[in-house]
């Protein structure tokens, strides 16, 4: 498991990235993060939802209740245009950061 602070700083980027292709609900997001990180990253309810609400309040993502036939309604989040801009710039920053770290620590890209 990664350090808590590092996870928090990158968590926003993770969520925005996952919402880039399609709207997703909270449980979906938590499963995806867990699966794609090979179980390294896990989000529990207590940390995931406050983060979603914060992002929503900032206007980066937008939650909507959506009902599908035969299912109970779920709240899906999608990326807003503002969120898309934020995602692009955060990606750049992240890339530079990783590059800088790797240069300093000598860890090479795979």
């Amino acid at each position: 498991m990664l350090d808590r602070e590092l996870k928090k700083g990158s968590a926003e980027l993770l969520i925005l990235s996952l919402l880039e292709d399609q709207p997703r609900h909270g449980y979906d997001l938590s499963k995806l993060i867990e699966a794609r990180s090979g179980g390294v990253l896990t989000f529990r309810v207590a940390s995931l939802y406050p983060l979603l609400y914060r992002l929503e309040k900032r206007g980066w993502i937008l939650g909507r209740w959506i009902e599908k036939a035969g299912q109970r309604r779920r709240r899906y989040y999608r990326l807003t245009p503002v969120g898309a801009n934020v995602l692009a710039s955060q990606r750049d920053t992240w890339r530079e950061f990783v590059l800088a770290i790797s240069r300093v620590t000598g860890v090479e890209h795979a």
Partner: protein
Amino acid sequence: MPDWRYAIARRLEGLCLRPTREAEVVEELAQHLDDRYHEHLSAGASDESARREALAELDDANLVRELTGIDRPPSEPLALGGGSRDHLGAGLWQDVRYGARLLAKEPGAAFVIVVTLALAIASNAIVFGFTDLLILRPLPIGNTERLVTIYSINAQHSQDRQAVSVPDFLDIKAQSASFEDMSAMSREQLSLTGSREPRAIQAAYVTASHFRVWDVPAFKGRTFLPGEDQPARSQVAVLSHRFWTSYFAGAESVINRTITLNGRSYAVVGILTPAIEIGNIGEMDIWLPLEMRASAPRDEQSLVVFGLLKPSATVEGAKIELKMIDDRLQRAYPATNTGRQLLALSLRESTVGRSTRVILAMLAIVVGLVLLVACANVATVMLARASTRRREIAVRIALGASRARLVRQLVAEGLLLGLASGGFGLLLAYGGLMAFKSLSMESYFRQLAINRNLLTFVLGLSVIAPVLFGVVPALQSSRPNLNEDLKEGGRDAASSVRGNRTRAVMVVAQVGFALAVLIVSSLIVRTVIALERVPLGFTSRGLLTVQVRFDPPKYTDDDARLRAVESILDRLAAAPGVTAASASSGLPVLDSEPMRRFAVAGQPLPQPNHLPWAFEAATLGDYSRALELRMLEGRMWRAVDAASGWNVAVVNREAVRRYWPARSPIGEHLSIVDQAGRPAGDAIEIVGVVDNVLSASVDEPAPPRLYRPLARRPLTQVAFLIRGSVEVSALASSVREALRTEDRELAVSEVRTFAEGVKRRTRTRDLIMALFTSFAAIGLIVAIAGVYGVTVFMVSQRRHEIGVRLALGATAPGVVRLIMGRSFRLIGAGVVVGLLGGWAIGLMMHSLLFGVGAADPFTYAFVLAVVAAGGLLATYLPAHRVVSIDPVIALKRE
């Protein structure tokens, strides 16, 4: 499957989220826990451990801290009326539709509101229409701001706004420095002759400068050129647009054509713009150059004078300068100018006199009060509805509706009602204004119309009034006590002290305002009735009148005119059914009369400003018998008087009281004085005394009057007065026949009864009285509807209590007394407020009153009786109805 909601809600407690938001968060988190729980189950965990694992997700010390401040995300509006406070406008359409559905469910309440408010809005719109016409709308004259009208007034003889004499005008023009230019206008009737039947037309003689001073353009052709008021060049005419279209059918070929007026020919040079046709100016058929002779007598006041102020000059400055000029004129010409002052009024002041402004102000106060009564009434109805809707509102608040949203809902309902009333009111106002326009004889009111100003005004009222009456109940019901209101059968509204107090204030205000309106209107009505009942001094009933003009070319001199008048009188006297016929210089009371100053023979000549004066009327024929004017002493004219050159006169009782006190004036002599104040002309012998006849100012005592023989100087326009023993219509045809036999080409007015003439003159006054009466009736109806509504509501809220009282042995009359007692205490308080208000307004309008005081006890008693009767009915009916039902039913209804 476990229920996570409690566990989640417990952890959110400290956050104080809004209920709807909390419900959303709980739902979302519970789903997540469900999914996690199923995930653990499918991975082979036991139910117990799956549940524990899932719940563990919530247990993070940071949950509450992390969630702080997550409230109020932008979210979709909720059907229940939660919504976002940032988007108050979002569900407005929804509110309006909801309001419309609610109102449709209670058509009675909606009907009462719309009708009462529409009546009030219509009243206000009508008065606004007058204000707009008389005060707000710009005059169609280019130089409005710099133009002043100059009149002469004579305070000594309470003569208001008299014309100015030609020499005075020339002196003012020569001596004043405030004006860039001046113009003068006088009006006269002329006979238009030519290929068609002769026709009497209204001509305005103006100086050549006139249209330039007014800055009024020609519609076609041109107006007068400088110098066209000089005798050699003055045979030119400008037609009014109205006359051009009606008489010449709008043919442009009329320009440069020649027309004949009183035997003199004029070349038409232009048509005046139609914009100018308002008020008296609209009555002019034709405009002719005014030739002025400086030798014209100074006591012949015929000109209305206009001055165009220099850009640097002010009205105040001009007034001071005119004061200096009239001081000089008074010193130079004491006989004619003593007591005569020049009065400069801005154009706006001169078109709308002081009494018109007072009447408008009174109307505005009255309709303002009517509007307040209607608003108070509507507020009471809304309040009652809001009270009965407390449960609905409490449910909505419990389900998460915000307070602002609820207020908006109620205001939206009010707005809906307001706009409906505004639309209906506009229709009523249109009807009222058009009726006034067609009934009034005054051309000024032809311009009454629904215009943009009026529409804006009505729209404004329709929006503001609902805010006035919608906000009070909205605020009151948006702060409900949920626990009480949600309880089954909660009767919070009726027992609420606040609700009762508001309703009580509304009833007091309604009764008070309505009473004040009634008092003001009754005083006006009493004034008009008193004016109509003033004894004129002669018998006006059954008296026929007709005006005849004796114009050139046929009647060019005094002899020709006198012969024609005498011949007509003979024919009339011989006509079937005629008992007395007379000719006169004007109609008594209706026409204005010239004023003469004279010296009484045998008395020392007083200072010029203390000379005896009297209005002069010239008569011929059987004047005293035709009018049934009482001859107190002596006689009227006889043929023998011709020998003395008609130097005889009859005076009235008032003249005797003033100038021959305590003695008979018969046989005494007087002589008319000249401009210098010295007797001029032959001595005139007084041969008779008649009773007093009022002047045109019927609210003032009869003035002294001097009757002279018409034979002395026959005028171009003569009024014939005929009394007969047969029915008026038969008499009228005899009169017409006599005139036709005399001369087919005479320009003759309609033959009408004297009463008709009075009616035409007082039509506007009668219409204004009708307005006051209708406004008072509207105010009364609305207020009584209000009292009725409040009593019905109060009774329905106390139905349970009344049932208990009746069940415990209270008698029906006792309960009725109980209910009516409370209503009458409120009505009593309203009456006190209204009496004080009405009295205060009555004092403000005392200058308008005649024959009735501001504190007239009869009026107050009458108005009190009306309000008491209305109040009695409005409270008795609901009270009676509630006691007539079985108490058991009343109790079961709960």
